[in-house]
């Protein structure tokens, strides 16, 4: 029996017990630190073209060079800055928009539910690429606009997850008890419906971060995303579309792909850890 398990101390205690989540958090933090601080320490130049094209890893270029002879380690680090930024910020925007809308639709039902959830269906069925291409054509091509667009277009997933949970939570007797106890709607939503509805969201966040990173790179490929020569993990991986690169020069795309996978898996574990740590029923 744990003696004191209330409040935030219980949260950290439970999170620490989730070993994979701790490793995941460590890896993500390490990535962020490397990506932010490594260029300050090492002499990294992602743009200058060297004499060696498609060069394998060597003493001079630790990860080799790409098809036009740029240092891949530098491109990986600088690319990580953009990719992590896009992934995390865009997902944060998706959740910030989708979570409240899903809660409102699930808790109030009626007209709010119809409007919000049908909009979500429209957003999900409409090819978002086309919207992004049009918006980029109108507002110009910049990183903040890209993050905003990817973020806003991703709102239906968190909204639907929270909505489906809120539908069952609203009918629980503890919500009625809160009403009888004189709690206002805001208190009921924030303290009763929200904490009991967010659990499935934490797992989704990891997938959404990775899909935001990949969306950014496919946009780059179409000429609407971050433009070359600026590097992102996505556009490094996209070089593997060339069959020659795919088979003969794996050092070009494999490190970026591994970074992406490690990031996604780590965030996934962190998500799982947060979900379990928020649930006081988990103790082990």
């Amino acid at each position, binding site marked *: 029996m744990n003696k004191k398990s*209330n409040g935030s101390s219980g949260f950290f205690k439970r999170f620490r017990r989730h070993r994979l989540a701790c490793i995941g958090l460590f890896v993500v933090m390490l990535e962020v630190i490397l990506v932010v601080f490594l260029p300050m320490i090492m002499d990294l130049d992602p743009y200058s073209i060297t004499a060696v094209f498609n060069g394998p890893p060597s003493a001079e270029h630790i990860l080799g060079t790409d098809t036009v002879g740029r240092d891949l380690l530098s491109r990986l680090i600088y690319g990580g800055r953009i990719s992590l930024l896009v992934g995390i910020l865009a997902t944060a925007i998706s959740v910030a928009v989708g979570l409240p809308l899903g809660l409102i639709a699930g808790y109030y039902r009626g007209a709010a539910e119809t409007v919000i959830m049908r909009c979500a269906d429209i957003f999900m069925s409409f090819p978002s690429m086309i919207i992004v291409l049009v918006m980029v054509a109108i507002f110009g091509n910049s990183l903040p606009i890209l993050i905003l667009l990817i973020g806003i277009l991703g709102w239906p997933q968190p909204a639907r997850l929270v909505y489906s949970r809120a539908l069952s939570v609203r009918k629980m007797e503890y919500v009625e*008890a809160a009403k009888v106890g004189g*709690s206002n709607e805001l*208190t009921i939503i924030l303290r009763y419906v929200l*904490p009991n509805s967010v659990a499935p969201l934490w797992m989704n966040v990891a997938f959404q971060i990775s899909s935001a990173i990949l969306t950014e790179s496919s946009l780059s490929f179409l000429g609407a995303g971050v433009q070359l020569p600026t590097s992102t993990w996505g556009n490094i991986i996209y070089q593997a579309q060339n069959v020659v690169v795919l088979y003969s020069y794996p050092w070009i795309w494999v490190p970026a792909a591994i970074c992406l996978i490690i990031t996604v898996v780590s965030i996934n574990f962190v998500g799982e850890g947060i979900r379990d740590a928020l649930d006081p029923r988990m103790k082990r």
Partner: protein
Amino acid sequence: MNAQKELLRVEHIRKYFAIHRKYGNPKGNYLRAVHDVSFTINEGEVLGLVGESGCGKATLGRTILKLHSVTAGDIYFKGENIVNYGFKKMLPIRRDMQMIFQDPFASLNPRMTIEKIIRAPLDTFKIGEPRYRRDHVAEMLKKVGLNADHMNKFPHEMSGGQRQRVVIARAMISNPSFVVCDEPVSALDVSVRAQVLNLMKDMQQELGTAYLFVSHDLSTVRYICNRIAVMYLGHIVEIADADELFNNPKHPYTKALLSAIPVPDVDQKRQRIILQGDVPSPMNPPAGCAFSTRCPLAGSKCEQLHPDLVACGAPGHYVACFWPE
């Protein structure tokens, strides 16, 4: 009962649920959960509300607390008609009318500690000074047979009986004068039922609270209630003092219900009244008396006219039947 002062009066209350309201309800289908119900509860009195599943007894309790919107009728609480009160006007009244729920596994927020759960009404109604509220909670826990150690626990760490004690503590902490008890012991193990029931009875007598005790279990109701109302398909068909109802039932439905109570005696031959058929759908209730489709006494008058509750026999005994015996 001593003072006989009226606490709650419900007049001709109706609660209909629209079906397919979402699509404009073109056919106008309604589920008549509560249909034209009137009764009063005096201060410190326990009124039992019995009936089979789906007869509208739980809906009636929730409608009085305004957890459902009221379709028609009036609810007078301490002389005030609260039917049209909005959230703000209801707030001071909510402090005085609370609810004990059926399922102790669903009625406690799993993300809150016991202290937070019981303390919530104190905070919303601003009862006492904030620094004394924790002591108040501890005191209340002791009253319901738990102790201060339980404050930092979460609901999942407790048993069903303990949780129901927490539910009672939450309902009683604002010292309400009226509590709706929605089948408070039917979800509990038989072994803890009596304990919780006794606790509720003790609390009621100590604090002078009035209960509307909703149940399908007649033995439980007889144990705790002063008066009993029998509901069938959204109507109250009979209402009387507890002993009077058990000894001298007038309505054929009440008789059938009472005959179904198990008697702990193998030798005693019981005369069970077996009702034929099913309860009619509350979406399409019979035109006359709600019970006419299953009643052994039903005649053509019963099928056409709806009987009102009329005084019959002992004082305070009312029955809605054309042929009361």
